[in-house]
């Protein structure tokens, strides 16, 4: 029993208890200075009428869609390239490298490279005759830019997950396809992609849960601006809790985020169960 004691202590104090307490706090008014005051559903009622909340949710969804879409397509492409061309560990290590440096570091490097006046990316754009883009300063570009930065950081990691999935597809399936005269393109769409589905579903869910919680990049680069364009839900909760000390309301929003992620996970379970028919 002694073996499980420290882990259980940590689990109860820093996971279970805060989960229960967070749920309770979401029904209170709490400014950290005096004891939480129970106020029923007031926080939730407020949330429904809070245009900043809906904006944050909308911006987050926009981010998630761009991030996931781009990242999944690129990751599958990269994984295919690696699978067909080279199993080199060096190549794999290089594409994983961005994933291993801090979000903050990644955000700062891109913040510099994407600077309107002296950023190297705008220099490149200039060479092909495109006017400088204010990546972080233009409200249309801000979210796609933040999403793109995170795609750069995560696509190698995701590609390695897909790559691991590719290696589980038995070789005879491909041999059979080749014997049948299937073209490479056809094989990819008819065989590889369907057989990859369990891995893809898993990857989609993991990355979706992760990308709903985008914070670091926004905190370091745009801080929610310009004009709320990048105030994602995580950042809004953070602002409410730690700059306005509106802890009850922040907890309520965190609970809603929790619920959204739970739904995403449930959908995943459904899809995962449906996989059984794939590789008979």
């Amino acid at each position, binding site marked *: 029993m002694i*073996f*499980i004691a*420290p*882990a259980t*202590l940590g*689990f109860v*104090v*820093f*996971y279970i*208890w*805060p989960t229960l*307490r*967070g749920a309770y*706090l979401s029904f209170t008014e709490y400014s*950290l200075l005096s004891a939480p005051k129970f106020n029923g559903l007031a926080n939730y009622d407020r949330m429904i009428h809070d245009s900043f909340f809906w904006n944050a949710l909308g911006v987050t969804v926009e981010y998630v869609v761009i991030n996931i879409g781009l990242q999944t397509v690129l990751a599958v*492409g*990269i994984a295919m*390239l690696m699978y067909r*061309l080279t199993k080199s*560990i060096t*190549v794999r*290590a*290089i*594409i994983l490298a961005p994933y*291993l*440096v*801090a*979000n*903050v*570091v990644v955000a*700062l*490097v891109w*913040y*510099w*490279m994407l600077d309107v*006046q*002296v950023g*190297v990316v705008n*220099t490149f754009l200039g060479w092909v005759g495109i006017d400088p883009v204010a990546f972080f300063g233009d409200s249309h570009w801000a979210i796609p830019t933040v999403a793109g930065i995170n795609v*750069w950081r995560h696509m190698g990691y995701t590609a*390695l*997950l897909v790559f*691991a999935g590719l290696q589980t597809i038995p070789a005879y399936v*491909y041999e059979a396809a080749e014997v049948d005269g299937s073209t490479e393109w056809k094989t990819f769409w008819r065989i590889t992609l369907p057989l990859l589905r369990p*891995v893809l579903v898993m990857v989609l869910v993991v990355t979706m849960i992760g990308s709903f*919680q985008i914070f670091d990049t926004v*905190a*370091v680069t745009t801080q929610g601006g310009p004009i709320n364009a990048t105030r994602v839900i995580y950042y809004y*909760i*953070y602002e409410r*809790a*730690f700059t306005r000390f509106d*802890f009850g309301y922040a*907890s309520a929003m*965190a*609970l809603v*985020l*929790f619920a959204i*992620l*739970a739904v995403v996970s449930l959908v995943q379970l459904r899809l995962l169960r449906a996989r059984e028919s794939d590789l008979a």
Partner: protein
Amino acid sequence: MRKQVSIGRTVAWVLLFILLIVTLFPFYWMLRTAFSDNTQLPGHPNSLLPVETTLGAFKRVLGLSSIEEAQAQGGSGAAVNFWLYLRNSLVVATITTVCQVFFSAMAAYAFARLRWPGRDKVFAVFLAALMVPPIFTTLPNFVLIKNLGLLNSFAGIILPGAFMTPFAIFFLRQFFLGINRELEEAAMIDGAGHRRIFFGMIIPLSAAPIATLAILTYINSWNDYFWPLLVGQQENVRVLTVALGVFRSQTPQGGPDWAGLMAATLIAALPMIILFLAFAKRITNSIGFSGIK
């Protein structure tokens, strides 16, 4: 699937090559900028080599140049002390990793090798915790740490992650399950208790996965931003990631100290880059496992 040299294959190689460049270029640009003279940078936005190569940016960041010198080179002149932040990051990441991996290994052993009532139910509860998004527990945890009077202390930064994470336990349990039970029984017949089996047998046999987990934990802990931002704002416990955020907001708005900023990011990223170069194979190979299982 052997193919002769074809157009398709050539295109594929070109694509892969472009991909590698896109991946590596920002790292190079960080390096190139960090060694540049900040006042000369805006004039040469597309120079591939450092502009007027100098160590000035590093000196500025590490507090080795005087305030006047720093300002003349485009710095804010505010005192920065990256040595201190480097030490703080080392303290936080090291203690977190050692404690978390050790306690998680103990729990994983109990879940994998010991029989006790309710074991599987308790394990299911631990796993369910993986579902709870961090922000949800972060808010009450902040209140707790504050009430304990641990804001701006190493204990406050380290405690929540020190005991376990559900993932660490899950990861190690998988390996412990695979260890041959007969070995364990033989040891028991020889009179070894659980403690001796754990330290003398399980840990040595699982050295590789434990090392992998430790490296991953170290990287995560080193790179963590949100929690240390909340509880470790004060200078004496500020870690590198938080310091970078502060440094960025301090650089003058007109012509930011890009060289200094890149020197700072390079210093912050360097230990992880070295760790990665040393363990690239182990880390890379663990990705397939950690994500899918």
